[in-house]
């Protein structure tokens, strides 16, 4: 019991202190840019009504999901092909190194040329940014399949689709998930940027609107929402990852215990 309480204490202590500090420091603030925390929190439910959640938050999330999913599928598929054949990998490597080095937000104006300012543009932007970490990590994971494992599979006649599904992809999955995690943070950034740049709805769009119209407490609530979104998605990802990679965590834990 005491241990549980101690853990709860550790988890909550600093955040509570920081929030309380923020509250106290900003309480009597007349600075336009730093409204009292109290005001921000009071404005929160007024700004983020059910309607706004439907009209702004939902479209943002849907675009993010669509772009991310596209990137994941393309990244894993292409990555598997490239990673499986040494020659293909050597062929593609310099080009990929260059393409992945382009800062993804820079592609917003480029993609806008092709896709206008609608949903397609945003999904394309998100996908084009998210694909790189997934692709490159998949290549690495597929390439680095343990040779003993590969020989075992070969000795038992496991080949083709079965080999890909049951051996290669499973073996590469920790690396692939690392790529998916990086892709998630990039996706969120691109979702926000594409909406700040050119949009008619969405979280990013809303926050920029507030900023332009000097609705500062509202703007702050928007920042909080973005922060919350980032946090929640990260937690969801961790939950999914722990379920799918339970074996990997167990393996590493046992390896650490007996090197």
């Amino acid at each position, binding site marked *: 019991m005491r241990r549980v309480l101690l853990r709860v204490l550790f988890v909550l202590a600093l955040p509570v202190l920081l929030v309380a500090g923020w509250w106290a420091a900003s309480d009597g603030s007349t600075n336009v840019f730093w409204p009292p925390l109290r005001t921000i929190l009071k404005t929160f439910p007024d700004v983020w009504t059910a309607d706004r959640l439907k009209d702004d938050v939902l479209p943002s999330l849907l675009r993010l999901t669509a772009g991310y999913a596209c990137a994941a599928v393309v990244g894993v598929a292409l990555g598997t092909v490239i990673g499986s054949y040494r020659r293909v990998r050597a062929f593609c490597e310099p080009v990929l190194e260059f*393409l992945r*080095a382009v800062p993804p*937000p820079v592609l917003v*104006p*480029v993609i806008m040329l092709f896709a206008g300012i609608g949903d397609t543009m945003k999904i394309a932007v998100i996908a084009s940014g998210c694909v790189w970490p997934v692709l490159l990590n998949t290549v690495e994971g597929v390439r680095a399949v343990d040779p003993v494992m590969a020989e075992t599979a070969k000795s038992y006649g496991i080949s083709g689709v079965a080999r890909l599904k049951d051996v290669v992809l499973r073996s590469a999955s920790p690396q692939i998930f690392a790529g998916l995690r990086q892709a998630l943070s990039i996706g969120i950034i691109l979702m926000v940027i594409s909406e700040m740049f050119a949009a008619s709805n969405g979280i990013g769009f809303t926050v920029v609107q507030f900023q332009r119209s000097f609705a500062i407490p509202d703007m702050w609530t*928007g920042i909080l929402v973005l922060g919350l979104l980032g946090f929640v998605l990260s937690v969801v990802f961790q939950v999914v990852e722990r379920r799918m990679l339970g074996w990997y965590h167990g393996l590493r834990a046992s390896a650490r215990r007996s090197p």
Partner: protein
Amino acid sequence: MKGQTAVNAALGAAGLVVFLALGEAVPRLGLVKEAYFPPASRIADALADEFADDTFWTALGDTLTGWALGLLIASGAGIVAGIVISVVPYLREATASTIEFLRPIPSVALIPLAVLLYGTELESVLILVVYASFWQVLVQVLYGVQDVDPVAEETARSYGLGTWARVRHVLWPTALPYVMTGVRLAAAVALILAVTAELVIGAPGLGQRIAVAQNSQAVPEMYALVVVTGLLGLLINVGARAVERRALAWHQSVRGEVAV
């Protein structure tokens, strides 16, 4: 093995050539509208024009300033914070939840705030760059500290080494590879955020130049600038990896997470 490397290099070069050839052929064949995607040769011309333009170099300098300064501040802060958290008892457990909450917050959420506070000044860029890069460094430092051999630590303590001495002789050497990884990741992130800040906020730099090119429909110039940012990113990635490798050449074992 050397034969293998040569073959790989040749294949890679071939890949590049094919890529450029496609970049030339696809628009010319009309597969994509030339207005949306000019042929590679036109982009190359625009690139040459950019290099001849003084304002381009100023913009490049601005971007690099924001990048370098932000990276420096973030790395310093990240290393110091990481060490302090690791050394002060219980601080690690106490800060874990806060770090886990703050880390995934997209730094672009701070853009409106930065705009209000500093407009298009360098500070806006720095706010974004530092916030994003700091976490990369901090997380890696914490990983590194976790990797410290408890036996080495115990030995140091039994010889009466004080906290500072232990940091210098046990913690730092173990954490160094991780610090290098963190700085490498932070360098890439810093570039992205610097260019993003310029693009969205309009602070001076390559990003802002791209926005201007896009607004004035100067399409080949826009692509040329995108290529420049890509090359810049490439240089930074390759350079950071080289530095990391050189600095760790003497380090016996570089263990740990592979963050690509």
